[in-house]
């Protein structure tokens, strides 16, 4: 049974030598919607991401993925459980082609066994073909078919972001974590990426968006959490949250 509550943080804290970087944070990210996590610089957003992604131990609290406690799961296993992410600084394999980068997202769905893959048996070949076909579908959807054979590092920043998206979608995740995906983009580029995010959410994926760009956030998020100095200071619908005095102060205070 798939719960609509895909990601739940319950009283999550992380201390670094007595200093709480994240303090008693509880959040829910639902399937089919884009949930936003915002806050001034140094608020602890990256720490939350790292806690969810399995790169940091939790000092307190739990993280639940579709009802299952994944607080102690290692990063690779979390990914295998259906958690995909994009990186703040786009991390692709720069010298590989666009197609190869996208194909790397299919590793989670390996069904052919190790033996078949080592010796190139028919089951492995068939699977490789399937993944190739699915990759091409993704390229088509993101209008990057003509770039399939191009080296990833030769393309523009906007294109590289799309490659990262395709790679993440290749994983067919239940939770997609977007780490400042439109940083450094102009409004048009951001808007077109935002449309894609909405499509992904509409397909049933739970999307957690970490972003600074307020306009962008209010245009596509259906729920917001605001972090400041490691604590949640506000949450709710974008319209209300962004008018919240505490939120305004946190941003002004940090400026």
């Amino acid at each position, binding site marked *: 049974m798939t719960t609509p509550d895909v990601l739940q943080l319950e009283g999550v804290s992380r201390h670094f030598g007595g200093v709480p970087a994240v303090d008693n944070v509880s959040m829910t990210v639902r399937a089919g919607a884009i949930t936003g996590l915002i806050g001034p610089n140094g608020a602890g957003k990256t720490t939350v991401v790292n806690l969810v992604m*399995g790169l*940091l*131990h939790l000092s307190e609290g739990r993280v639940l993925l579709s009802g299952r406690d994944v607080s*102690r799961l*290692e*990063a690779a296993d979390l990914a295998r459980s259906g958690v995909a992410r994009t990186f703040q600084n786009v991390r692709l394999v720069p010298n590989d082609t666009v197609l190869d980068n996208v194909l790397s997202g299919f590793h989670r769905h390996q069904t052919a066994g190790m033996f078949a893959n080592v010796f190139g048996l028919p089951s492995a070949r068939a699977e490789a073909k399937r993944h190739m076909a699915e990759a091409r579908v993704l390229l088509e959807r993101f209008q990057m078919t003509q770039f399939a054979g191009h080296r990833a590092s030769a393309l523009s920043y906007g294109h590289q972001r799309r490659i990262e998206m395709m790679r993440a979608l290749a994983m067919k995740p239940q939770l997609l974590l977007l780490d400042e995906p439109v940083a450094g983009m102009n409004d048009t580029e951001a808007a077109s990426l935002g449309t894609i995010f909405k499509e992904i959410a509409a397909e049933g994926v739970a999307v957690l968006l970490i972003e600074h760009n307020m306009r962008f956030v209010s245009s596509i998020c259906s729920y917001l959490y605001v972090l400041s100095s490691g604590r949640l200071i506000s949450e709710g619908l974008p319209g209300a949250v962004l008018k919240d005095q505490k939120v305004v102060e946190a941003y002004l205070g940090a400026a």
Partner: protein
Amino acid sequence: MLTQQLFNGVVIGSVYALFALGFTLLFGVNHILNMAFGSVFMWGAFAGLYAVTVLDLPFWLALIAGMLGGGIVSCLVDLVAFMPLRRRQAPDFSGIVSSIGANLILLMIAQKVSNTQIMRFPFDTFPIVIFQVFGLRIQLLQLIIIGTALLMVVVLVSLLYRTGLGRRIRSVAFSEGTSKLLGINSSLVNAQVFFLSGAMAGAAGVLIGLTFNSVHYLMGEPFLMQAFAVIILGGLGSIPGALLAGLLIGLVQAMSFAYISSAAADAITFAVLFLIILVRPTGLFGKASTILRVQRR
């Protein structure tokens, strides 16, 4: 006699510690395994030797010449083998390969210059003064060695924790990028660290060359392997660890040498090293995060 062997072990251990201190300093700051470090040690010995045989300098100046020689060769290695990689932000693995290449070149030049001969310090370079204490036969030179190692530890620790240079070194060791943002000239700091570690290795080279009465182009290689054992046992980047581990390994070696055989001494050290890496890679004082792969921290 047992106590004599123990003392010998402490002496050998001090030399290992001296060598390893430079190595661990370099590793702590750069996170690279400098495979050419054995040659730096060897060239320090060469420099000290030529200072005595060609320039007719007394022991103390020869020691300084050795330190200078080691420091300069070390900086050269940095310039040619490591700096171009840092500029290109190459992975750690490249540094190791590059230093293997540099080592080959340094070895061959030394071989040519020395004609593959085993050279010796002239007899009168250091006075042979022997103390008989508690039934132990102690040479002045051996005391100097132990003293130098201890002195170096003290100097290094005070340098690192009480001076501006030390702060800059620790900053670069923690994060080169952040240090640059803070206005620290990381290239200069790197050069200084290379010089410092090379000087320590050079001093070790001269002392060892005197003690074992032999200076030859391959003398550094076994020390490099011992250095691995020392820094891994002691914990990476840990200075007290390097001293302690150096002494421990020196003791183990002296015992094996005396009671089993010289070949066994080496084999035992490397086997211990191998097992330690597999079983307890953090050593005595190291941190797991520096050693193990991507995992929850």
